[in-house]
């Protein structure tokens, strides 16, 4: 009897086993949670590493320094130096001659062509044309120019083309490799920071393509979106939060805004296409229309952020203002809105960051144009940074993948900075009551 009383039901073998099982289950559950977090982090890491790994080399580019003789007989046989002649003169031949002069041993036509292929043909000719056009006195003289090498040679020098692979599987021939090696050892072919990537617009040649056109397009579209959505969004939020009577209509507006926030972005693109382009006849591909569509899309985000910022302001502020004789409108605009400004600003920046990364609605209104000029006003056709990424991602060549990733890196850095500014402002300016 006494022996049985000592062993409670919690200390039988069965109970111990049960407890161990429950504890093991507890542990497993906990580890499952940790694993889920780790998986999410690994995916984020994999994303960043794969993009940075593919893209960082695009910030460098190999350049060839070469001396060209601006032969008057080729460029300007009449000696008139008129602008039209200088524009359409055969600069290609000038470059070719310079290259053949550098490698006098190359005589076969086929080898000559291969030799010419190591530099960026249009890059070199455009460069010389521009210089001669600006200063016609250069004709007849010698000129040392620095031109980008072709994308294949650049990829080879960056180590993406294996020199041990069979020649017919490579995009660079043995002969070209020999020339390139020679130029590298003589110091004529060097690696430099790829400024062109940040200053040029799109191009058909990867070694000449840059993001400047797309960045300017994005800035214009975002500017339009900002001036459309922030005043209207803040106005709507102030109205709903402070002035609206509680009735069916305002309930309807409120439900409406919540639903608008969840409408897929591509539907806003369809709206832009049907209303702005087809009904109002605004120009296709223009940053103005892109900005209007993005503005409408960010409107709910800004309204919701502003409302929560207004709600966070202590009601005692309004009471104080009213008790000193301010009207309701004065109390709101002189006291409440300024105190909510940091929240409004943070919400606007986050909304703009969302708009910056948005692609689908811009595709709908035709901002997918191939634009080789940097746009100068909001009615001109333009591209935008995410759309540029989309366009480049379609091309199969390695040099394009590298540039696509580089453009993504730029986009992500801008987005991270915008969000960091928003977080900084919030922590700096936020007041708690």
């Amino acid at each position, binding site marked *: 009897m006494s022996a049985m009383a000592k062993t409670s039901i919690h200390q039988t073998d069965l109970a111990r086993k049960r407890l161990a099982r429950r504890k093991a289950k507890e542990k497993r559950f906990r580890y499952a949670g940790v694993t889920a977090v780790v998986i999410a982090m690994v995916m984020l890491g994999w994303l960043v590493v794969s993009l940075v790994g593919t893209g960082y080399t695009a910030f460098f580019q190999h350049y060839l320094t070469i001396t060209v003789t601006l032969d008057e007989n080729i460029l300007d046989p009449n000696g008139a130096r008129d602008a039209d002649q200088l524009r359409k003169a055969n600069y290609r031949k000038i470059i070719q001659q310079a290259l053949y002069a550098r490698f006098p041993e190359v005589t076969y036509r086929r080898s000559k062509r291969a030799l010419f292929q190591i530099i960026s043909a249009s890059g070199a000719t455009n460069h010389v044309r521009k210089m001669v056009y600006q200063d016609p006195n250069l004709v007849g003289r010698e000129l040392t120019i620095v031109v980008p090498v072709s994308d294949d040679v650049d990829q080879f020098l960056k180590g993406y083309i294996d020199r041990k692979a069979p020649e017919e599987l490579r995009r660079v021939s043995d002969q070209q490799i020999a020339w390139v090696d020679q130029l590298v050892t003589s110091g004529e072919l060097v690696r430099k920071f790829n400024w062109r990537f940040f200053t040029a617009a799109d191009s058909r040649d990867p070694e000449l393509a840059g993001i400047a056109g797309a960045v300017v397009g994005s800035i214009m579209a975002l500017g339009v979106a900002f001036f459309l959505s922030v005043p209207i969004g803040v106005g709507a939020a102030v109205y709903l939060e402070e002035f609206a009577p509680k009735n069916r209509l305002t309930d309807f*507006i409120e439900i409406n805004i*919540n*639903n608008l926030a969840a409408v*897929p972005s*591509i539907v806003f693109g369809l709206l832009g296409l049907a209303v702005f382009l087809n009904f109002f006849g605004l120009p296709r591909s223009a940053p103005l229309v892109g900005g209007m569509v993005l503005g409408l899309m960010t409107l709910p985000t800004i309204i919701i952020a502003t409302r929560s910022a207004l709600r966070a302001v202590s009601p005692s502020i309004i009471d104080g203002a009213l008790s000193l004789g301010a009207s309701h409108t004065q109390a709101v605009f002189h006291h409440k809105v300024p105190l909510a400004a940091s929240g409004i600003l943070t919400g606007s920046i986050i909304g703009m960051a969302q708009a910056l990364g948005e*692609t689908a609605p811009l595709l709908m209104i035709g901002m997918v144009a191939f634009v080789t000029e940097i746009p100068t006003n909001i009615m001109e056709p333009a591209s935008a940074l995410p759309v540029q990424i989309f366009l480049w*991602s379609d091309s199969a060549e390695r040099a394009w993948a590298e540039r696509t990733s580089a453009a993504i890196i730029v986009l992500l850095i801008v987005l991270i900075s915008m969000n960091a500014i928003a977080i900084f402002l919030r922590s700096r300016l936020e007041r708690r009551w």
Partner: protein
Amino acid sequence: MQQLLNPETLIGALLIIGVVAAFLYGRGLAISRAQLTTDGARAHSLPSYHGYFSAWIVALFASGMIAFWVTFSGAAPNFVFAILMFCALALSFSIINRLLTPTFRARNHVERFIGGALMICSGVAVLTTFGIVLSLVFESLQFFKHVPILDFLTGLHWSPQTALREDQIGQSGSFGAVPIFTGTFMITAVAIFIAGPIGLLIAVYLSEYANKRTRAIVKPMVEILAGVPTIVYGFFALLTVGPAIRNFAEGFGFSVPTQSAIAAGSVMGVMIIPFISSLSDDVINAVPQTLRDASFALGATQSETMTKVIFPAALPGIIGAFLLAISRAIGETMIVVMAAGRAANLTGNPFEAVTTVTVQIVALLTGDQEFDSAKTLSAFALGLVLFVFTLVLNVIALLIVRRYRERYE
């Protein structure tokens, strides 16, 4: 310089100058008239309100006149309009001159005007919704004139290309959207299959297990996933995940195309993890502490409390979170455009390339455009389906979440 002198900029500049002048005039008038009254009567409103009121009156008259000019331009020579414009401005200034006495309630008028302007602002949001609905419905009706709505919703074959020859099968293209819908649902299913468990477990971990510091680090890190633009995910799927899945499958002797439902779906799953985890986290945190305490008091472990007490209590909210995530996945565009393929396959195999509603909208509307063709209009019909479906999902989700919140408040 040429640009600065065109009539639009000139009129715009004059308008701004007129409005500013009116403000200064009104304010000055208020001050000088208030000073003239010696019987102790003070002005009702601050001088600046008189200024704002004047500016508003002038802007109203001037913009009305400009609108009149634009609508009837050509009916009379321009100088007639210019004279009318001048008369309108003179009239508005004389009205100001008459009205602005110290007893004039300028502030009340200005505040009523501000209230009206704010109301118009919130009207824009409603207008946007109406614009979306009207444009989608209008263009879809045009499309349903070409293709009966039932054929569109139940047809099994999708090839919107208009045929070149008369005798080709389906010469006006065939618009059976079922393969598109199944493709959309398959990719969404793959995404939820990945994001659901991971997102939920993250939410549980963050709300029940993680200490404050871990939470402060992990939560924003997970939410970064939602801030990455979808074009970036799309390129990631195309560049890395698609080939990785293909190589992995080849290791087992299967052949999987780089563009497949599984590649697009899994990357989309990563994207919607934070939607599920944040919303579920909120929902789990909203479960009253008393339920937890009661469960622990009965000797339950944390995991038992979670699975047997909190999870059932939070279930409606979690379902709401899932619905919102599904709606997000269905409306997502760039990932699928880049990673899912364009051929409309009616298949149940996630390792094949399928297409989605959003991919088809993009495919139909980029490139050549003739606006009346059934091909272009079908994009709007797909857009309407997408809009209605996501709207219904959202409304249901919001209703569930709201009802759930009310239960514990």
